[in-house]
């Protein structure tokens, strides 16, 4: 049952921006502790957003049911986040503040995010670090025992907290430990190896989900007073991405089909520093953390002959002198250099490779070089140790130790995959799909257009505009889960204290369950000719070629038509082996790819509708003479929120006009 009349109301509180959140918290309705025991909340996904939300809601006293498709909540893909988490602590005394984090995020997002949400994010950022330290998250510290910081792209301060190259792992295990405490108390009921396949709406409100037990294949009904979607991003629509193999859009897409608007699907982050692909068998791409750009310098050969010689294996990168190298980011963007935002760095790499300067066999790679950093750190360390006239070898040895301490696990990952030693020869990197800024449209309360259905973390669209800054995804996930949703959901649930338990025998549950079973039966009985991966790879190729780092109207129109064609073929000829009532990984893939095949077309439609270049969305028709993005604030300073109408091509656009009262709208410059 779809909700018919959609009205977008962001529900941003009145008042000066710095007071909105405090004043909001002071005036919302609360649920008393005794009543919280009578209220059930479903959380789908147990990454940083879902895990932290589940733990906090349970601490508050709600009965939480948490779902994840993995065999343990600890394996959600937040675990793979590497570089760090931002917070406006100003421990370095380098001029950071809540305002500056707010400003950097809005600017970094190319002025396509909602000011009030971003300011709230910046406000609670400092609390996240306090909370995580209290939970035992072992952040990096300096010799004085205080927390250390590093820099990330698009900012001029050091506000990133980190735990080597495993910050996401440590933060997720922190949230997981908080969940464990509540699981032990019986306040969280954990459903591992379960996948949400639909939402159930009763009297216009989200009242439960239909989930498949991935071990037994059983289709289950679960009811609650509110449903929280924390299922992450949809980068796997490209088939190849830095996401986990199982990351999918299904939870988000199912609520979209039942009335939740999907916002800015075309705002996708192509991360500049990933390990280049090596062959057609490739199943996923691996990120090399942005933190490496603190110390690594990005370059390609200055002369095209050298690039050709390197590609043919006749020259090595270490053969090229400084004068023969083009540090193109430092050249084009002297103020930010190698630390420009991700969208800018990715396009610059593509520009060089398209011009013929790429360095691996495919011509799609640039160098990330640590030689200068190793020598600099080595010389510093030699001085500290009081070594007189250290040899170059000694300096390199000492420098490598410092670099190993900072990025050891990343260098190890690189060596395992590429079989080259990045301490001795520069890394090869190329952009890859990494994060999706777009997602389910939510208001200030993080509620979707379905009452009682919330979306948090990467699954929503709210905070990063058209481009996310590095180390801000972890910040947003934990902000939403620990500090925002627990307040906003209470305001909604305060009206639900007399509702009582929701029965799963309601006809809405039966109907939703039958629909899910119908789809599964179709897949099992279809006995077609092609595997699910065959279709997923085809979709991914179209997305990368025509809806990737740069897009044009012609290509986008073609992409829409081609995706529709693949989708129709999929529904005729897909082959899913095995049965419905058992563990069946191919069936899991089929239900996910079915949704990607619809999302992909809406994605292209959204990119086609947005006749401007901003952040990660680069339309070739809209660029400056120097090849920089040309934004159109007069016509496109809005959030595109799409309403489902059956075929993705028929989706209806609703616009949320963005207002910039506290930050002046101006062209983003990192020069």
């Amino acid at each position, binding site marked *: 049952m779809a909700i018919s009349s959609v009205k977008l109301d962001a529900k941003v509180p009145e008042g000066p921006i710095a007071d909105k959140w405090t004043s909001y918290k002071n005036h919302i309705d609360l649920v008393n502790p005794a009543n919280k025991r009578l209220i059930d909340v479903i959380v789908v996904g147990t990454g940083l957003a879902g895990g932290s939300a589940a733990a906090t809601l349970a*601490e508050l006293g709600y009965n939480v049911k948490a779902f994840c498709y993995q065999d343990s909540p600890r394996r959600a893909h937040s675990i793979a986040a590497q570089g760090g988490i931002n917070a406006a602590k100003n421990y370095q005394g380098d001029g950071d503040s809540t305002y500056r984090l707010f400003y950097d995020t809005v600017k970094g997002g190319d002025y396509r995010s909602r000011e009030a949400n971003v300011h709230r994010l910046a406000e609670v950022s400092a609390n996240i670090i306090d909370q995580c330290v209290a939970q035992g998250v072992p952040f990096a510290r300096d010799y004085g025992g205080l927390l250390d910081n590093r820099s990330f792209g698009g900012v001029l301060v050091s506000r990133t907290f980190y735990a080597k190259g495993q910050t996401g792992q440590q933060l997720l295990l922190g949230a997981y*430990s908080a969940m464990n405490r509540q699981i032990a108390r019986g306040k969280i009921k*954990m459903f591992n190896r379960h996948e949400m396949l639909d939402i159930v709406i009763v009297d216009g409100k989200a009242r439960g989900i239909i989930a498949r037990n991935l071990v037994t294949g059983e289709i289950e009904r679960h009811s609650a007073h509110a449903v929280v979607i924390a299922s992450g991003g949809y980068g796997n629509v490209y088939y190849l991405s830095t996401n*986990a193999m199982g990351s999918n859009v299904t939870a988000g897409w199912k609520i979209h089909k039942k009335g939740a608007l999907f916002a800015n699907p075309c705002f996708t982050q192509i991360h500049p520093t990933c390990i280049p692909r090596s062959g057609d068998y490739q199943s996923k791409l691996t990120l090399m953390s942005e933190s490496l750009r603190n110390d690594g310098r990005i370059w390609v050969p200055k002369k095209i002959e050298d690039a050709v010689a390197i590609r043919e294996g006749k020259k090595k990168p270490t053969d090229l002198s400084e004068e023969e190298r083009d540090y193109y980011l430092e050249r084009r963007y002297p103020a930010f250099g190698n630390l420009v935002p991700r969208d800018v760095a990715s396009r610059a790499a593509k520009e060089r490779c398209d011009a013929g300067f790429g360095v691996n066999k495919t011509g799609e790679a640039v160098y990330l070089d640590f030689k200068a950093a190793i020598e600099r750190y080595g010389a510093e360390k030699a001085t500290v140790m009081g070594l007189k006239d250290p040899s170059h070898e000694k300096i390199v040895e000492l420098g490598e130790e410092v670099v190993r301490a900072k990025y050891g696990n990343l260098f190890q990952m690189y060596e395992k995959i590429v079989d080259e030693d990045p301490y001795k020869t520069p890394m090869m990197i190329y952009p890859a799909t990494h994060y999706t800024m777009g997602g389910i449209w939510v208001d200030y309360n993080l509620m979707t257009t379905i009452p009682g259905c919330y979306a948090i973390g990467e699954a929503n669209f709210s905070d990063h505009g058209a481009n996310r800054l590095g180390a801000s995804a972890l910040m947003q996930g934990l902000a939403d889960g*620990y500090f925002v949703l627990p307040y906003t959901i209470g305001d909604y649930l305060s009206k639900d204290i007399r509702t009582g338990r929701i029965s799963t025998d309601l006809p809405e549950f039966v109907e939703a369950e039958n629909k899910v079973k119908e789809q599964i039966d179709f897949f099992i009985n279809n006995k077609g000719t092609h595997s699910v991966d065959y279709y997923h790879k085809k979709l991914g190729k179209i997305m990368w070629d025509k809806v990737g780092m740069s897009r044009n109207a012609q290509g986008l129109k073609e992409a829409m038509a081609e995706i529709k064609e693949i989708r129709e073929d999929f529904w005729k000829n897909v082959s899913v082996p095995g049965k419905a009532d058992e563990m069946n990984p191919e069936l899991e893939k089929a239900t996910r790819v079915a949704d990607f095949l619809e999302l992909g077309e809406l994605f292209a439609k959204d990119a086609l509708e947005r006749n401007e270049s901003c952040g990660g969305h680069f339309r070739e028709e809209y660029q400056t003479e120097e090849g920089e993005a040309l934004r159109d604030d007069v016509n496109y300073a809005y959030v595109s929120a799409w309403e489902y109408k059956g075929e993705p091509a028929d989706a209806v656009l609703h616009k949320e006009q963005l207002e910039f009262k506290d930050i002046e709208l101006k062209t983003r410059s990192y020069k």
Partner: protein
Amino acid sequence: MDLTLKIWRQKNAEEKGGIVEYKVNEISDHMSFLEMMDVLNEQLINEGEEPVAFDHDCREGICGSCSLHINGEPHGPDAGTTTCQLHMRKFKDGDTIFIEPFRAKAFPVVKDLVIDRSAFDRIQHAGGYISVNTSGNTQDANAIPIPKVDADKAFDAATCIGCGACVAACKNASAMLFVSAKVSQFALLPQGKVEAEERALNMVKQMDEEGFGNCTNTGACEAECPKGISLENIARMNREYLSAAFSADPQ
């Protein structure tokens, strides 16, 4: 390269399993081990057979989903590596590779190569946390300086990915390395010190109830751990446990 694979197939937890032989051809050196498994599965699907089920997700060595006993070793022949990070360049043309699930009583097989590691979660429920609520007004993160050496050791212990290779490598299927990593992480930090003894007692109790064996001091766990978790953690847990056992009030 062309390979012969001998893979454990088992329909579900109840039915008996056995080794089945498969051939894969033209495997590239640059493929990861799991990409080689993808090739096999695509082949099986196209032949109308059921693909081999195995756990995997991030494919970059951090989520801990992948497991597999490869030629008798958890995560295969390469040191410091999860199965998903293992590359085919470690094998030769014509090799026969045995692929089995991790074997332990506490890790029952779910299907083919997929095992149930929920015992690990239950051990964490028993005490793998610091009892602090989310309030937004905990003290400032820099209020308690922590010596870098302790913070670094806590971090090293905390990098455990919960894959279970330690259990699979141990002749007693002991989970001491896994449990001690969490006990150590928190015991090394002032925030976790408060509950350190109780935590050790509770987690060890749960570990025993799950059917994991005793530590033999062989060190196979450390040798096979893809993250290099140190045996030192087991010594630290034993210290916490003993001191707790002597001092704890009988409850």
